[in-house]
C-alpha cells in the first residue's frame, strides 16, 4: 500500500476522493473481430477533488454522463482512462477482489427505489446480508445492529419481517439508504435519490441524508437533474453537459455568479411555484445532441444563445476563474 501512495503526484492529503481526467467510453459498433469502430464518450476528461465531510452536487440533463461518472467512481464501470484516488490510494486498477474491501467504504443509492431492492428478501434480510458478509459486527449482534440502523433511518422495527413491495417509494428509499450505510461507508454516491419521489417525501429524504451526514461524517456525491434540490445539500456543485464538466465551484459561487451559459439556462428553466415570478426565461433552442455523435468544438455551441464562430471549432479550456470556480467557455476570455 505504501508504494501505491508514492506513485500519486500532487497528492492532496485533505481530499477523500480525487478524480483526475476521468474518461469512460462505451463501444457502440464493433467489427466481427471485436475491434471498436465507434464509441460513445459518456464521461470526457472530468477532474475534481472532494474533501471528507463535504457534499458534491453533480447536475445535468439526461445523457450528460452524470450517472456513468458516479458508477465509474465506484468502479462499477471500469474507467477508460484517468485516475480515481480514494483515501490516498489509487484504486483505478484494483482487481475485483481488492475492490471488495474498498466497497465497504464507498456505497451507492439509486434513483429507483422499486427496482433497487431485491423483491424476494425481507427488509431484515436485505439489511443484514452486507453486515454479515463484510463481518461489520460479530454474527450474534447483527440483528441488534440492523435494528439500530433502521431506527437511525427512520424505519420502524416491525418492518424487519416485511417485504419491500409492501412499502411506499419514500420508505423504500429509506431502506436503500439503510442498506448503503450498513457497512459504515465513508463516501456515498447518491444517484438521483429523490427524483422518483413525491415532493413532500423528497424533503423528508433530503433532510434524512443531511442528518445522517452529520451523525456519521459522510461524504456525498449527490447526482441530480434538479438544481434546486442540489442547492439544499451540496457544498460544491459541478454542472455537466454531454460528458464534460462545464462548470465547477462552491455552491455560493455557482448560485450567485453562474459563469457558463448552460448553467444560466438551467437556472432559468426551473418553473418557480410563484405565479408572480414571470421570469425572463432563457429558452434553449433544439435538443440535446446525441452523446454518440457530439458536436465539434464547444459541445454546447449548437444550443448556446451566445455562440461565436470560435465555439464551433475549438474546444474551450477548463480554467479556474478564482477560488476554485472553474468553467469551460470561450466567452469568459
Amino acid at each position, binding site marked *: 500500500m505504501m508504494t501505491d501512495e508514492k506513485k500519486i503526484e500532487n497528492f492532496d492529503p485533505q481530499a477523500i476522493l480525487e478524480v483526475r481526467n476521468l474518461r469512460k467510453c462505451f463501444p457502440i459498433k464493433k467489427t466481427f473481430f471485436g475491434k471498436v469502430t465507434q464509441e460513445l464518450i459518456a464521461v470526457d476528461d472530468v477532474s475534481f477533488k472532494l474533501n471528507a465531510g463535504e457534499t458534491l452536487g453533480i447536475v445535468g*440533463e439526461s445523457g450528460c454522463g452524470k450517472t456513468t461518472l458516479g458508477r465509474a467512481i465506484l468502479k462499477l464501470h471500469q474507467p477508460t482512462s484517468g485516475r480515481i484516488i480514494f483515501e490516498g490510494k489509487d484504486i483505478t486498477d484494483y482487481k475485483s477482489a481488492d475492490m471488495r474491501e474498498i466497497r465497504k467504504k464507498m456505497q451507492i443509492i439509486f434513483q429507483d427505489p422499486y427496482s433497487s431492492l431485491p423483491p424476494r428478501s425481507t427488509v431484515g434480510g436485505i439489511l443484514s446480508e452486507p453486515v454479515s458478509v463484510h463481518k461489520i459486527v460479530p454474527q450474534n449482534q447483527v440483528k441488534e445492529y440492523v435494528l439500530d440502523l433502521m431506527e437511525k433511518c427512520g424505519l420502524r422495527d416491525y418492518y424487519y419481517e416485511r417485504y419491500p413491495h409492501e412499502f411506499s417509494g419514500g420508505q423504500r428509499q429509506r431502506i436503500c439508504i439503510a442498506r448503503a450505510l450498513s457497512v459504515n461507508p465513508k463516501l456515498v454516491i447518491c444517484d438521483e435519490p429523490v427524483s422518483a419521489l413525491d*415532493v413532500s417525501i423528497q424533503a423528508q429524504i433530503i433532510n434524512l441524508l443531511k442528518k445522517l451526514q452529520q451523525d456519521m461524517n459522510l461524504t456525498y456525491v449527490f447526482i441530480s437533474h434538479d438544481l434546486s434540490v442540489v442547492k439544499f445539500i451540496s457544498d460544491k456543485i459541478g454542472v455537466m453537459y454531454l460528458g464534460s464538466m462545464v462548470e465547477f465551484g462552491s455552491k455560493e459561487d455557482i448560485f450567485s455568479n453562474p459563469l457558463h451559459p448552460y448553467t444560466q439556462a438551467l437556472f432559468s428553466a*426551473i418553473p418557480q411555484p*410563484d405565479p408572480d415570478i414571470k421570469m425572463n426565461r432563457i429558452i434553449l433552442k433544439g435538443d440535446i445532441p446525441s452523446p454518440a455523435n457530439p458536436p465539434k468544438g464547444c459541445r454546447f455551441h449548437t444550443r448556446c444563445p451566445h455562440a461565436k464562430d470560435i465555439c464551433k471549432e475549438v474546444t474551450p479550456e477548463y480554467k479556474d476563474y478564482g477560488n476554485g470556480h472553474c468553467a469551460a467557455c470561450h466567452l469568459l476570455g
Partner: protein
Amino acid sequence: MAKNKNYLSGKEIRAIAKENAKVMKRLEAEKYRKADESEYLTEMRDSKNILEIDKLHTYFFTEQGVVKAVNGVSFDIPKNATVGVAGESGCGKSVTSMSVMRLLQGPTGQIYSGEIRFNAKEKSGEEKVYDIAKMPIRDIHKIRGNQIAMIFQEPMTSLNPVFTIGQQLDEVTFIHNPDASKEQAKEKSIEMLNLVGIAMPERVYNSFPHELSGGMRQRVMISMALASDPRLIIADEPTTALDVTIQAQILDLLRDLKTKIDGSIMLITHDLGIIAEMADYVVVMYAGRVIEKGTVDEIFHNPMHPYTIGLQKSKPTLNSDSDTLFNIPGNVPNPINMPDYCYFKERCAQCTKKCSGEYPEMIQVSPTHFVACHLYDEGQNDD
C-alpha cells in the same frame, strides 16, 4: 400458509371477492348497454363551463379491497381557461382524467357514481351537454378524440412505432373529417406541426417516431391532440419525462398555444412550479379528494389547507435561503379502507379534536376559493 396478522385471511379475501364481483358485474353491464341519447343528455350548471365534474367517485375493485381512487371530486373547467390539477402520486389526479376520457381499465376500474358534464359542440354548431359518466362506452367516440383530446406523459410509447408521423397525424384528420382528401389532410398535418414549433415539418412528417427526440415527440403528441380542434385538452404530466431545458421549451409552447386555440386545458402535474406558470385555476388533490381549489393567485398567495401550505414549503426553490427543507411527516395513507375523518389528520401539525370527526366539508372562502379543512369551520359559522 404463515399466520401473519398484517395479511388478509382467506375468509376476508373471499368476502371481498364476492362483494366486488356483484358490483363489477352491474357496472360493466351498464357500461356496455345500448342507450338512447336522451338518457345521457343533461344541462350545465353554469353555461360558462366546458366541463363540470360533480361528486365523481371512481373505484378500483381489487382483490385486497375497494380502492377509492377518486372519492367525491368536484370541480369545473371554465371555457378558454387552464385548470391545473396538482397532487402527489396516488392522489387520483390521473384517474380523474381517465374517468373523463372513459379510459379506465375494466372490469376492476369503474366510475361508481357522480356526473361528468361536458359541453360538446356538434358539427352543425349546436351545443349539447353530455353526461360522460352515464354514456355507454359505444357512444363515447362522439366526444373522445375529437371533442376532448389527451396528451400523455410518456412520449416514447404513445406513438405507434410502425407508422410515420405523417400517417398518424393524417389519421386524426380523417377521423375528424372523413371527406377530406389526402392532400388536405397532409396540409392540415403540416400546419399542425408548424403550430407546435417544429422547424422542418416536411421532414418530420415523413419520419418514424424513433427518429425523433423526446421533446420532438411530445410536440408531435401535442399537434395530434390539436389536430381535431378539441374543446378540451387533457395534459397528463406532459413534461415529467423530459429534461429541464426541454421542459422549458414545451411549457413555453403550451403557454403560447393557450392564446391561439379556442379551448380549455386540464393540466395534471405534481410540479407546483408548472402549475404556477401555466394555470388560471388550481385544484389540489389529496388521497382521492379535492382539498383546496381556487384561482392561481389564491392558492399560491393565500394557501389555506395545511397540505397545500406544506407542499409549497417543502418544494426547494432557488430563491429560499434556509438550510433545511420543511417536510410533511409521514406517508400518503393507503387507499384501501379509508377512514371517515380527514385523511390528512395524521400528517397535519394543526390538527384539532374536530379532525377526528367527520370528513370536513368544502368551505367557501371567496367566490372562487374553496377549502376542505376544519380549521376554517368557525369562520363560516360566523357568517
